[in-house]
């Protein structure tokens, strides 16, 4: 095992983990605040990736896809919350699972109708299509560095928003004790709209950034969805910082596993999750111990 290869795999793992964080943070916020199990979150990621594909093939620039993803994500999130998810906050888990499963099917059909069922690759933007030499004899893709940078920036913004602003405090409170937030006279519906829109926009962003790395293909959201659930569960439900660390952990375990022990790599993260849950039933960073 050469050192340069290991180094590259470590960076790959971090980059993968940070992308997972973008998906998982939305998932964990939506569950934490609204109590919704959103299986369609992977489809939102898929929508982002296809947005990147459509925008780049129309305009030739991935940089236009980023704002398109953000705006589209916010709009889609607002629509979904206002007209669908709002009616499911107090329904049983089973109903939520089925609603969002139906959404997966519908998103896949919409994708199939609009873009088709083929694999497409999305070119890396020309500005970043080179390698940065890190040490002698080892260089690493500039685009992947950029992805790491953008994800870290978004994570920092998320952290500031959740931990340092008034709205963030309300969201944390709503995740912890929803009744209390109601009693204080805060309009929960507005909070729900905001959280859902942000979560959706993050998932779309992740999709846009991921498109040049993984290309776009049918059912691509599925694998990311399940892994993101693992991240959320290990990190503790509703905890954004927990999601951050567990996303990095899962990203590294999965990437290093696939590189060095491919036979068990698929299993590894699920074994990890089962072990964590049996050891700490509310996740590594989960505060709830009732």
């Amino acid at each position: 095992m050469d050192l340069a290869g290991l180094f590259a795999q470590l960076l790959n793992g971090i980059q993968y983990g940070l992308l997972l964080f973008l998906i998982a943070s939305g998932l964990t916020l939506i569950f934490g605040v609204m109590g919704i199990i959103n299986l369609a979150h992977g489809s939102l990621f898929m929508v982002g990736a296809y947005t990147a594909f459509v925008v780049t093939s129309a305009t030739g620039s991935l940089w236009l896809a980023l704002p398109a993803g953000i705006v589209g994500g916010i709009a889609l999130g607002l629509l979904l919350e206002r007209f669908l998810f709002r009616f499911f906050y107090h329904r049983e888990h089973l109903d939520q699972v089925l609603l969002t499963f139906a959404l997966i099917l519908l998103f896949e059909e919409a994708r199939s109708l609009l873009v088709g069922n083929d694999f497409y690759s999305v070119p890396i933007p020309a500005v970043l299509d080179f390698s940065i030499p890190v040490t002698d004899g080892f260089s690493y893709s500039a685009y992947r560095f950029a992805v790491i940078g953008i994800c870290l920036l978004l994570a920092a913004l998320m952290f500031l928003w959740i931990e340092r602003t008034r709205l963030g405090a309300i969201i944390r409170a709503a995740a912890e004790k929803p009744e209390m937030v109601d009693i204080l006279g805060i309009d929960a519906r507005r909070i729900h709209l905001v959280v859902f829109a942000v979560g959706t926009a993050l998932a779309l962003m992740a999709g846009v950034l991921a498109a040049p790395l993984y290309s776009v293909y049918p059912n691509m959201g599925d694998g990311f969805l399940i892994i993101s659930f693992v991240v959320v569960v290990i990190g503790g439900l509703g905890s954004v910082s927990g999601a951050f660390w567990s996303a990095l952990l899962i990203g590294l375990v999965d990437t290093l596993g696939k590189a060095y022990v491919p036979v068990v790599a698929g299993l590894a993260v699920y074994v990890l999750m089962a072990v964590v849950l049996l050891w700490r039933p509310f996740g590594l960073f989960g505060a709830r111990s009732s």
Partner: protein
Amino acid sequence: MLPETKYGWMGLVLGAAALAALPLFAPPYYVELGTYAVIAAMLALSLQLLVGCTGLVSLGHGAFYGLAAYAVYLVTPESKGLSIFVTLPIAVLVAGLAALVVGALSLRTRGFFFLMVTLAFGQMVFFLFHDTKIGGGADGAFLARPTLSFLGYELTLTRRQRPIAIYYVGLMQMVLMYSGLAFLLRSLFGRVLEGIRVNEHRMQAIGYNTYRYKLAAFVIAGMLAGVAGHMWAMHRGFVNPELVGWHRSAEALLMILLGGLHTLHGPILGALAYTGLGELAQSLTERKLLVQGLVILAVVLVLPRGLSGLRFPRDWRRKLPFASEEKPVPEAPAESLRHG
């Protein structure tokens, strides 16, 4: 869980008769479709023991179904199929043992976490078959189908007779499963499961070790899913990792909700409706998923009690269409639903 009115019983008997008579009037293609529906119904029935009866929503039930099918593949020699009396017990045993292990671990968690742990175990089984060469890898593998033979005497069937025989074998198993579950749920064991669904803390307070009851239900449900998985192997003679994937589990949940929660005929109704719907959508529009997705959406939005929640008005003078005869089941406290 059994019908409570004479109309209910009449419906049940008529439905059973219609299913039994299917090969007499339906072309072979529809008999095969019926076999698929019966297999799906058995999977949904087995899951109903967990979801509708005990209140445990599992997203990993497909694992036991798929494991049973893979067990048939692994014990069958390449050239000659084994007797169903050998393969069925093995498949059920494998599924039951797996359910014992998975259940013992995952039942330590509740609610959302239970959903996720069962999903994780399901995915483990999926990747076990997907990434290794145990069962033909990602492409799957063909197997010699189990035969209908007993003590050296084998029922020989022509190519035309075989699908019909397989259909009846499946239908028989489904009827047995339905009756078995109906009796089980009328027993004290079934009552305790029902109590756990409504209020687990209260059952604990009365003095029941609810963990053991839930584990028993989990293992029985796993074994019954094994029966369905074995039937799949017998019908198709092919296994692939998709059998184990979580979409299968989600579809089974869907059939339950489509047919109706908290009833035993619900899953069967749901499986028939779902299979029929898929077939209809495929032949009409080529957009199977679109139609299925819309129907699920409609059911979740407007029919929370499923198809069996639909009722003819009992008293025509009181104009209350679709009014339910049953009293609403008291909900468990919202807190335990939300945070497990």
